[in-house]
């Protein structure tokens, strides 16, 4: 009986398994194999040797190192900041009574807004053109600071725009998740805490945070993974020649190695992809270990 049910279970899983095998597991193995084959060529299906040469090459490639640096800066700045800001806004939303729905909608709007429209807003804010300096520069000028070229100027200015953009894009979803997590905390906990004379800070750290920790943890994990995979936003802001702009990311590097102007190197691309995989895996495992102690599932 047990075995027959088991068989039935696998049968139900079969379509999903087939898809996952063909579109995920097989390519993964393929990439893994490519990354150890020197000078692999798609067309001729040939390679010149097996070893760690590809890894050695990319780890000495200044473009790759720049991409790793950019990605890490992006991750380290945007994940904590966006989660923190989202938490602050959610707490504020949760504590107001009037117009709560209106504000919730306003904060969620960017999420359902077309990327092109968001891009346009950023153009207006930051881009220097023949006609205008961009809104931010006008503001800077008005307090006596000279204009900065945020799109083609110094590294920190470009990084600032990228982080700003990334946080802006991920904020609505995080706010949505956190406001619903906060709203689902039973009010009686707060009532008991008030009667017991618990300070606001202690209520936040000892009750609110543990109660919403599963949602928070989910946002941090997906935030890390999302930020490590950054690419399309960077292209939208700085164009396709990211290496020249000094703004490439790891995924961007992989793409360039495959299809870019300097492309045609699947072996290097595979090695870079596996380095990214290793980084994301490590960070996620660390996250999971930390969460064991601090996340409270009910």
């Amino acid at each position: 009986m047990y075995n027959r049910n088991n068989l039935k279970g696998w049968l139900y899983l079969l379509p999903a398994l087939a898809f996952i095998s063909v579109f995920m597991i097989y390519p993964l193995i393929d990439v893994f194999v490519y990354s150890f084959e020197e000078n692999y060529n798609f067309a001729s299906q040939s390679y010149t040797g097996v070893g760690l040469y590809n890894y050695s090459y990319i780890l000495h490639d200044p473009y790759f190192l720049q991409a790793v640096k950019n990605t890490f800066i992006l991750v380290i700045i945007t994940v904590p900041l966006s989660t923190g800001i989202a938490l602050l806004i959610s707490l504020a939303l949760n504590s107001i009574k009037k117009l709560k729905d209106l504000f919730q909608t306003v904060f969620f709007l960017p999420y359902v807004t077309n990327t092109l429209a968001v891009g346009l807003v950023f153009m207006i804010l930051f881009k220097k053109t023949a006609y205008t300096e961009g809104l931010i520069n006008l503001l800077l000028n008005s307090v006596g600071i000279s204009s900065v070229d945020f799109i083609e100027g110094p590294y920190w200015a470009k990084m600032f725009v990228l982080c700003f953009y990334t946080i802006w894009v991920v904020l609505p979803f995080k706010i949505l998740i956190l406001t619903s997590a906060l709203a689902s905390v039973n009010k009686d906990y707060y009532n008991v805490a008030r009667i017991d004379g618990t300070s606001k800070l202690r209520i936040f750290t000892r009750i609110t945070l543990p109660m919403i920790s599963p949602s928070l943890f989910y946002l941090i994990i997906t935030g890390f993974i999302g930020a490590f995979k950054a690419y399309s936003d960077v292209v939208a802001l700085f164009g396709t020649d990211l290496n020249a702009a000094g703004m490439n990311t790891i995924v961007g590097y992989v793409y360039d190695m495959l299809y870019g102007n300097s492309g045609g190197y699947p072996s290097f691309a595979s090695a870079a992809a596996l380095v990214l995989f290793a980084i994301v895996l490590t960070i996620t495992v660390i996250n999971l270990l930390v969460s064991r102690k601090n996340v409270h599932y009910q």
Partner: protein
Amino acid sequence: MKIVLEHLTKQFISRNSSSEIVTAVNDFDFEIPDGKLVGLLGPSGCGKSTTLNLICGLEVPTEGKIYFGDLDVTALPPENRGVGMVFQNYALYPHLTVRQNILFPLENLKGEQKLSKEVMNEKALEAARLVQIDTLMERKPSELSGGQQQRVAIARALVKTPGVLLLDEPLSNLDARLRLQTREQIRRIQKETGITTIFVTHDQEEAMSISDLIIVMKEGMMQQMGKPQEVYNHPANLFVAKFLGTPAINVFEGKILDHKVYIGEDAVMDTEAEDQDIYVGIRPEGFIPDRNGKFNCRFDRIETTGRDTSIVCHNDSCISDSDIRVIVDSDDELNNENGIIRFNLKPNKTHLFSKKDETVI
């Protein structure tokens, strides 16, 4: 500490858009004596929780004052009132152990009141012992039964030795047997600590069995306050009479004519009251089967549940929701001729209420 409520009123703007005003607590004006266990009793939605929330300070009264002892606490925030409260769902912090839950209120103390770790642990253990959960200190609430969780909630409410303990339907999430046990525990704990305790319930039997005093309320208004047996024996109005007692009191339409009480055609007893239309309430134990009795009912059946034998019968004047229920001794001789059964009524179990305002005559 005695609690005095002075013309206490709480109004809400109704939540469902119509924005009509709901008076959840209407002009409460009474005193709860020091050291007593008081049962606040009434049907769901009559304002019991609101009353507790006013007393503990979670709600601000629309009008009126609250005193603890001689101290006016109306404007004091909850944390300065020295109350302990147990919520219906216990509201134990799920991520903290039993010990941490009980310690929580103590850890909030600041300044001069601040306690050392040892003293806090000692107090927590003492509270845990009082409710007999001292062997479960390292468990999480999810690893406890409903009754144990309930006791943890009481321990947490008691650990700061509050002057007033408030319990909002503390037993309604427990199964029947546990409910019986736990209410005895609450009674015992209250006796041991002597803390003035208000105990909210919609279950009249619960309130009757453990309270020193009960307060019956309906739609925000206090109906009657007194010792449980007194209120049962001398209900102030038809609502109180109907709300107390299981099986419920049997209610009939009747009238008084020439100092006789009539139910239908039957003159069932004498009275001194004036002629008027009335409701007659007769407790199930207020009937004496008698071949020559004055009150005629149509016999339906006999039911035996446990130790009680009850006669179920009909009468056209009966306006109770269910049939007439009469509890008799099993050795009472039953007279049943042509489906008619006759009773005499015990005057102390028969209550007359004015038809106009439903108050007792």
